[in-house]
């Protein structure tokens, strides 16, 4: 967290706060109000999208802890989400564990699996680590579809809808509150984690691992901790996917899933909680928007419908490429730029103008 120019705190509470300034509180309040009102005015279609965004936010924050904050590349997001989803689902289905407990167990199991797959990071860096996690993804994918006795193979697993305080989470409206609270809790936890000693160690390892070890950071332990923390939330996202639709299918946890989540944090902003949310929202909503456009022009251009999946694929790629070339720090940086612009509006200083004038 950076200190803002011209802001002087006189109390420790303000100094420690995540959102100390009135304007920040106002924005947070507006956001909270929107989140509270949204489900009452939105259509079921939008509610479903909102739930997907909330779940994706949890997964993206998890991945960002590993990739954005600690600098360890992982192509195994889909595999870790699968471990979370299948653990939660199978515990509930086969052993009758209450869903809350099985979700928590899923998080722990995924964290353990993440730590295990993080072991190669002791020796491997960059490209090699990326390829190792790619192999992990392919192996878990194979396990999902072929270990029929446990995962049911390519058949879908159907789960009972979770019940919270006597309310069945079988509608998008009911699930919305659970998803939003989980996403907000994850964001709060991650934001605080990154201000702690552990979070600082993550960033030190990312920026210069040798320097980090010189100042007393145990690099290997920190990396494993990053894998564990990250996988915990990724597993949570997987378990939420399972309970959102009350169904688990292997197609939702393939390498493409890993790529979609990497795209979220690239487009949103590496090493940014806000970016994780913005990226999750954009990448989740993008295909839906393209579908809507396709439907809208269906009457004038009837062949548009058959081209939709390809348009989605191409646009997805173009968005990644454009962000990497023009704004590698993502939507999060764009938002900051906008804030900076309005900070001194309308008396913005622009480079070159003063000299010309």
């Amino acid at each position, binding site marked *: 967290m950076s200190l803002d120019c011209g802001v002087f705190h006189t109390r420790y509470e303000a100094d420690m706060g995540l959102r100390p300034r009135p304007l920040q509180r106002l924005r947070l309040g507006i956001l909270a109000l929107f989140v509270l009102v949204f489900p009452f005015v939105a259509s079921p279609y939008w509610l479903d999208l909102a739930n997907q965004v909330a779940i994706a936010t949890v997964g993206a924050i998890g991945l960002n802890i590993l*990739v954005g904050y600690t*600098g360890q*590349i992982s192509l195994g997001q889909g595999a870790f989400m699968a471990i979370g989803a299948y653990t939660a689902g199978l515990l509930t289905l086969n052993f009758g564990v209450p869903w809350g407990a099985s979700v928590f167990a899923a998080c722990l199991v995924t964290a353990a699996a993440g730590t295990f797959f993080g072991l*190669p*990071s*002791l*020796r*491997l*860096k*960059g*490209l*090699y680590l*990326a*390829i*190792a996690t*790619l*192999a*992990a993804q*392919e*192996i878990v994918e*194979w396990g999902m*579809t*072929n270990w029929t006795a446990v995962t049911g193979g390519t058949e879908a697993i159907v789960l009972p809808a979770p019940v919270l305080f006597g309310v069945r989470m079988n509608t998008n409206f009911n699930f919305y509150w659970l998803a939003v609270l989980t996403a907000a809790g994850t964001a709060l936890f991650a934001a605080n984690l990154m201000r702690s000693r552990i979070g600082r160690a993550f960033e030190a390892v990312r920026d210069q*691992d040798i320097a980090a070890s010189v100042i007393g950071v145990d*690099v*290997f332990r920190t990396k494993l901790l990053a894998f564990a923390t990250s996988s915990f939330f990724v597993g949570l996202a997987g378990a939420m996917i399972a309970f959102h639709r009350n169904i688990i299918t292997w197609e939702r946890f393939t*390498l493409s899933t890993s*790529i979609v989540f*990497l*795209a979220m944090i*690239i487009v949103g902003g*590496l090493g940014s909680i806000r970016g994780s949310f913005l990226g999750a929202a954009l990448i989740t909503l993008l295909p839906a928007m393209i579908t809507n456009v396709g439907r809208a022009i269906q009457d004038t251009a009837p062949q548009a419908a*058959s*081209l939709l*999946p*390809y*348009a*989605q*694929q*191409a*646009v*997805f*790629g*173009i*968005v*990644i*490429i454009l962000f*990497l*070339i023009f704004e*590698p720090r993502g939507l999060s940086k764009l938002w900051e730029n906008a804030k900076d612009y309005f900070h001194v509006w309308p008396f913005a200083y622009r480079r070159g103008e003063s000299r010309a004038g």
Partner: protein
Amino acid sequence: MDIFLQLTVSGLSTGMIYALAAAGFVVIYKASDVINFAQGDLLLLGTYLIFFGVAQVGLPWSLGVAVTLLLAVAVSLAVERLVLRPLVGEPIISMIMVTIGLSSVLRGVTGAIWGPNPRSFDSFLPAGDIVLGPATLSTARLLSIPIALAVLAGLGLFFRHTRDGIAMRAIADDQQAALSMGISIPRVFGVAWALAAVSAAIGGIMLAGIVGVSPNVASIGLRVFPVVILGGLDSIAGAVLGGAIIGLLEVYVGFYVGHGLNLVVPYVVLVLMLMVRPYGLFGKEIIERV
């Protein structure tokens, strides 16, 4: 024994196509440190371009191959100039993601033009079978092996004997020193991408001749990783040997073990390789360790 021979030919011919894709990957990685996740899509582009030229426009084979290679090189050079060049010096995650984005775009565009269904057309490779003792071998597959080997040998000779090839090795060795000797890095990057496109397009053309044209071809892009890790990230000879081993392993495991294990066994080999010899069979023993 006859089945074993058939499997071997089939595995080797698949393996040589892997090797062609992997060689392109190696050339790009060697010259510019870019990890190209779109290698399979360059292959895909090759199969669709030859299909377009020969089956849809009706060009003769020789001309069709020439046009395919030219177009593949043009696309590849455009990609290098417009997408990769602005990202020189960016962190590795950006390089990985930009080629993943590229792969998505290529898949979307080829899909939009040629649709999801597999297509087949009269191959330039003879369709019949050769009976060799008890075994019946597909002529097309048998022929594809020497063709691929010739192309790969050509690549190897290029590195050893031409000016651009030697410049590329110099850049791979030490970019600063190469720059100070007056080697043009943009030119070498361009040549690397052009070569990768040629190598992948030839792989694609042969694949079109053997199994026809389908969007699934792009999945070969992921097989490149076991191949290059096995052979060593910076060696053409390694790509050939790695391709052969992975190709053979897949068909043997697929036939004698089954259970879809053939899909996963390359990655198991990859993990084992990363544990014991991460620089591969032929790679230089420099690996970034922590």
